């Protein structure tokens, strides 16, 4: 395929051939040439170049004066007048071999090793897990997830829709989930605040989906382009009422990819919206991401009932506490409501049904907490002090731990990959054998409250807070470790 478009016109005196040449692959669509050409020779074309711009095309070649204005005005050296003296055009690389651009994203097989941004790794993880519906509303620092899904999903027979706000986005992914699609939305703190009512609807109706929060500095609009970890409690308590919830916290683009798949698996297995809480650093960081071949990782799909419609009760949970789905359109005629409901899904406004309904929502997560909780531990059995961190902060604590070790302190490391359900049992166990916990988090004290609850009465807990927008000072962490190590019990 040619990258050059030509027009010819005979010069008057000499037998000279002149032509306008457009190097489409260089064009960035500023339209200066189109606008400024005195003879309206050029027009914006319909076609896209590799970068996604519309290069100009020649429409009135016989009108061209060869004035050269376009050549001079083009900021990207993408258009010029060719005459006899011009050096011949060398063979250029065919477009399809260029490594950037929209079309390559669409065409590529995502398998192997990549340098990939966290947000994009998240989107790829979702696609790997089978997500085929994304509804969202743009917000920094999560927008890249939506943008990636917008590019990818239409070519995977999926649907991307940019809704009018986050309320609609959350409602939309619940609807899509009931239609049988694995669905996801991604946002940041302000968006989660708007979604919370419908997150509750998802919890109450036990609707699988994944909600990603790329945390910014907060509260309110806070630090839109910067980071924090201050939505940790919101993920558990954001919507009104009691319900069990699951939150995963990746520390790198690779983990963002992996945990997005885990989140989809949990959401299908335990029937609820699952949160991924990361932050602007992980979201925007570019690191190596390995994407395994399809089918290499375990993917859990929805469990549909085998019962006949007349025998099926939509919220009848067997001893496993998790009801089976019926497919929309299969004649089961189920009723789904955010009101307190019985096994039939019917609203029943009694104390007994309320107790049964809500208790099951909490218990179905508690019961499986051992399967849901993922932790990373280092040197805990020999430790006096254990540093607890999660997400991006877990990377900051490593040099601090090394420094404290050099000072002769026995320090262990506990990284919470699953934040909710909270790993109470394990922390309680560790607490019996150590001098204290140092909790490092990028907020003014959230997860530390949970650690204190589980650690008391065995050991003390110290917080190293940070309000967000920067990173912890290593020495503050070392100081906290030292203080706790030398504290008299």
């Amino acid at each position, binding site marked *: *395929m040619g990258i050059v478009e030509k027009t010819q016109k005979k010069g008057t005196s000499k037998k000279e051939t002149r032509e306008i040449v457009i190097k489409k692959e260089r064009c960035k669509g500023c339209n200066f040439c189109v606008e400024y050409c005195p003879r309206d020779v050029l027009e914006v074309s319909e076609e896209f170049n590799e970068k996604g711009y519309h290069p100009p095309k020649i429409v009135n070649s016989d009108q061209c004066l060869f004035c050269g204005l376009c050549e001079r005005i083009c900021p990207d050296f993408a258009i010029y007048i060719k005459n006899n003296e011009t050096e011949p055009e060398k063979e250029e690389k065919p477009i399809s071999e260029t490594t950037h651009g929209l079309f390559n994203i669409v065409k590529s097989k995502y398998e192997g090793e990549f340098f990939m941004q966290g947000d994009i790794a998240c989107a790829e993880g979702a696609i790997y897990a089978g997500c085929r*519906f994304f509804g969202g509303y743009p917000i920094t620092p999560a927008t890249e997830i939506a943008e990636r899904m917008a590019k990818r999903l*239409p070519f995977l027979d999926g649907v991307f829709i940019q809704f009018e706000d986050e309320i609609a986005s959350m409602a939309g992914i619940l609807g899509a989930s009931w239609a049988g*699609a694995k669905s996801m939305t991604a946002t940041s703190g302000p968006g989660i605040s708007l979604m919370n009512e419908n997150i509750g609807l998802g919890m109450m109706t036990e609707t699988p989906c994944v909600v990603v929060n790329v945390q910014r500095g907060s509260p309110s609009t806070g630090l839109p382009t910067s980071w924090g970890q201050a939505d940790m409690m919101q993920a558990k308590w954001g919507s009104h009422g009691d319900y069990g919830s699951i939150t995963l916290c990746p520390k790198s683009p690779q983990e963002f990819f992996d945990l997005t798949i885990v989140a989809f698996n949990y959401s299908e297995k335990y029937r609820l919206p699952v949160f991924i809480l990361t932050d602007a650093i992980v979201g925007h960081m570019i690191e190596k991401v390995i994407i395994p071949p399809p089918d290499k990782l375990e993917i859990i799909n929805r469990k549909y009932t085998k019962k006949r419609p007349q025998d099926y009760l939509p919220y009848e949970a067997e001893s496993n506490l998790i009801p089976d789905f019926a497919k929309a359109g*299969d004649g089961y005629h189920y009723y*789904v409501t955010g009101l307190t409901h019985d096994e039939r899904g019917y*609203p029943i406004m009694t104390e007994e049904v309320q107790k049964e309904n809500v208790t099951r929502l909490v218990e179905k997560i508690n019961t499986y907490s051992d399967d849901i909780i993922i932790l990373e531990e280092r040197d805990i059995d020999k430790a006096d002090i254990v540093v607890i961190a999660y997400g991006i902060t877990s990377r900051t604590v490593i040099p601090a731990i090394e420094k404290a070790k050099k000072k002769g302190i026995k320090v262990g490391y506990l990284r919470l990959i699953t934040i909710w359900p909270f790993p109470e049992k394990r922390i309680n166990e560790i607490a019996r054998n150590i001098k204290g916990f140092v909790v490092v988090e990028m907020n003014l004290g959230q997860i530390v409250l949970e650690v204190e609850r589980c650690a008391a009465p065995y050991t003390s807990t110290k917080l190293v807070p940070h309000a967000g927008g920067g990173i912890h000072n290593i020495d503050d962490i070392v100081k906290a470790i030292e203080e706790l190590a030398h504290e008299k019990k």
Partner: protein
Amino acid sequence: MKKSSIEINKHPIDKYLRRDRMPHIWCPGCGLGMDITAFIEGTKQANIDMNNMQIVSGIGCTGRISGYIKLDAYHTTHGRAIPFASGLKLANRNLTVVVFSGDGDLFAIGGNHLIHAARRNVDLTVICVNNFIYGMTGGQTAPTTPVGAFSSTAPYGNFEKPFNLVGVAASAGASYVARWTSLHTKRLANSIAKALSNKGFSFIEIVSPCPTVFGRKNNRSDALGLINELRDRSRIDNSANPTEIPITNYGEIVIGDFLNEPRPCFSESFEEGIKKTKERIEK
């Protein structure tokens, strides 16, 4: 034998209702039951596979409709039926998705979703029951409460200009727009059938009597009186411009099948756009 005698007494609509939930919670003389009947008739007329039909509601007296019709049905949160329904429809285009909800639900708290779904021409049939007030919560001002009408939050009479629902829907981009009263069941059913057959955003307003709350606060608590009033005040004009027929407290209510201008729905436009790109890439 006993069984067959029970069958004989079965109301023809019963097979479409959750009989085990009858009687419903609505007040005597409430228009909502009539609206269900018209709806069922409309779906039959349109020859829709009932198993594919999905009913989505928000919260309110009207929101309870989804709980009484025996189809796959979703009672969502206040105002959010439309985006929920959009998700359902876009993720599975074989489903026929109907939103049945109140005027407060769809035009106050959910107004933003309504105009955007209409703009996108998402293939939904939205049926809005307009009873001029918030019924479920005991009679507060709705975005439809006429100027001069009373509500518990407009104790001196409402002075806010209400929305003309069909006008809003048409202006926002709905491709099918109609308005009837609960009383015009036949015409309403016809419209519902048309709306269901329109591949795009269809909007039907049903002016429906709420004797208990709207009526009581406005000296019209007699249910029959209220339905008669709707009959007397309404005038059919299919050629009316939906943007020019607001409803006032006592004035004429223009009803009809105002607009039927199909255009590509969201999914079709989406597909078309992607097809073009695919062709370009393959070149």
